[in-house]
């Protein structure tokens, strides 16, 4: 394998990266879109180029950045809460099985309930303000964090705990030196997946609960049958989500480079 790779010219090897394939599929996708939009596209299906134009125009408006700011307020606070609460809860659930017995059912509810269904409940109890948007982002994200962190703590090799005990480690030292570092790769994965859910929550809450910011832009453009601008807004959200996830992935590799999943050449989950 190694020698075969060495024999290929440098430009071939440079091209043989994930990025090349990702750009390749994107070009295909854009082409297909363009053709579809030109041939069958109606009022609400703009072509790719129209969308790009609208996107450039959109990011030049103050309205867009205001919307970004307002939407991301809920995202940042909600996600921070999800991590701040989710990580400790996940760690505790992973270590103490009895506690988990009591709480597992609620976790499952959070995991499977269509979150949109609880939006009316939230609005009725806390109103339309920032608080209810933050709460929704938090419940969206926190499940992923808790479930992954819990799994991470649980899969720490019991032999390591025994080893630490044999050298006289206290319970606190076992937590600090074995359980937390051992669960770190999963904690980072939970944070990354939670981030994805937080972005979803941010948009959904604005679409279904309070017509505001980015969600409001989407609804507005739809109402005006402004296809290109509608698509451009959605593209902006997608781009933000992709950038955030990539950053999280980078951080994951930086923080836990020993984890098999984070080694060079390992595929993203």
């Amino acid at each position: 394998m190694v020698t075969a790779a060495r024999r290929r010219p440098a430009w071939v090897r440079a091209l043989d990266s994930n990025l090349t394939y990702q750009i390749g599929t994107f070009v295909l996708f854009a082409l297909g879109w363009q053709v579809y939009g030109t041939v069958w596209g109606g009022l609400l299906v703009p072509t790719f180029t129209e969308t790009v134009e609208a996107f450039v125009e959109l990011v030049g408006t103050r309205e867009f950045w205001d919307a970004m700011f307002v939407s991301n307020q809920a995202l940042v606070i909600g996600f921070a809460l999800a991590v701040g609460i989710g990580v400790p809860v996940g760690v505790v659930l992973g270590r103490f099985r009895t506690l988990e017995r009591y709480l597992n059912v609620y976790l499952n509810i959070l995991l499977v309930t269509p979150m949109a269904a609880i939006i009316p409940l939230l609005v009725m109890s806390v109103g339309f303000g920032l608080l209810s948007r933050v709460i929704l982002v938090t419940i969206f994200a926190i499940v992923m964090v808790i479930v992954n962190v819990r799994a991470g703590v649980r899969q720490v090799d019991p032999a390591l705990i025994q080893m630490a005990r044999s050298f006289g480690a206290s319970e606190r030292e076992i937590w600090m030196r074995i359980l937390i570092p051992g669960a770190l790769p999963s904690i980072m994965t939970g944070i990354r997946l939670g981030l994805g859910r937080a972005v979803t929550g941010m948009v959904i809450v604005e679409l279904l609960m309070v017509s505001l910011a980015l969600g409001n832009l989407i609804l507005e453009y739809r109402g005006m049958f402004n296809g290109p601008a509608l698509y451009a807004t959605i593209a902006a959200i997608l781009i933000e989500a992709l950038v955030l996830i990539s950053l999280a992935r980078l951080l994951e590799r930086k923080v836990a480079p020993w984890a098999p999943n984070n080694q060079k050449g390992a595929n993203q989950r």
Partner: protein
Amino acid sequence: MIEISGLGKTFIGQDGAAVRALDDVNLTVQENEFLTVLGPSGCGKTTMLKMIAGLLPWDQGEIAIGGAPVRGPGPDRSMVFQNFALLPWATVLDNVAFGLRMRGVGKKEREERSRELISLVGLSGFESKRPGELSGGMQQRVGLARALAVEPSVLLMDEPFGAVDEQTRRLLQEELLAIWEKNRLTVVFITHSMEEAVLLGDRVVLMSARPGQISEIVPVPLERPRSSDVGGVERSSDYVNITAYLWERLREMHEERSVVAGSGPSV
């Protein structure tokens, strides 16, 4: 000196049936003796070792080290684990220093001491590597260095070379012997290999399963220092005879068991 008297332990198995893991085990390990423990799987040898380490409780009997009863892990003992039990996120240096850190040794001193041990086991230059970058043999060298770093008077080894290939295993055996010759300490070494038990041990404790009991203690009168290279102990008649004898005994145990298993009604 380790004194074990009347040691017994009953586990409740998954089917609810009681399993007698250890039954009336009496054993005295002399100061600086290299004792190997051999037996079929399920004979309780690892259980006994973990009890000496203070990691597992027992039901009957007493374990005393240097006259003091064992109540838990202590600074006089350290352990080498079958699957190395290295911290995958820590460097070789930090892994070797782990025991010292748990014992409250300051950073400068523990790094100095760890470097000495790393060089003793032949891993100089690998201080900043992580376990994942090392071969199995090198990983167990780290495990050995970590155990020796805390300067124990009793070294407990749980099938330490069971997870490495045969060639590496022989090299590790020789290195362990060389280290032990230089710096004698009491060693209790669990193994399932007759050859390993005889090559390393002053005495071989032969255990039998169900219940886990000491079946026989076989002295190994081979001269030290021992090595397994050409002209080494493996060609001496004592070595050959003792190994053959141990195998006979072990095979009897297996036959007894298969007879018992075969005598039941066929399903």
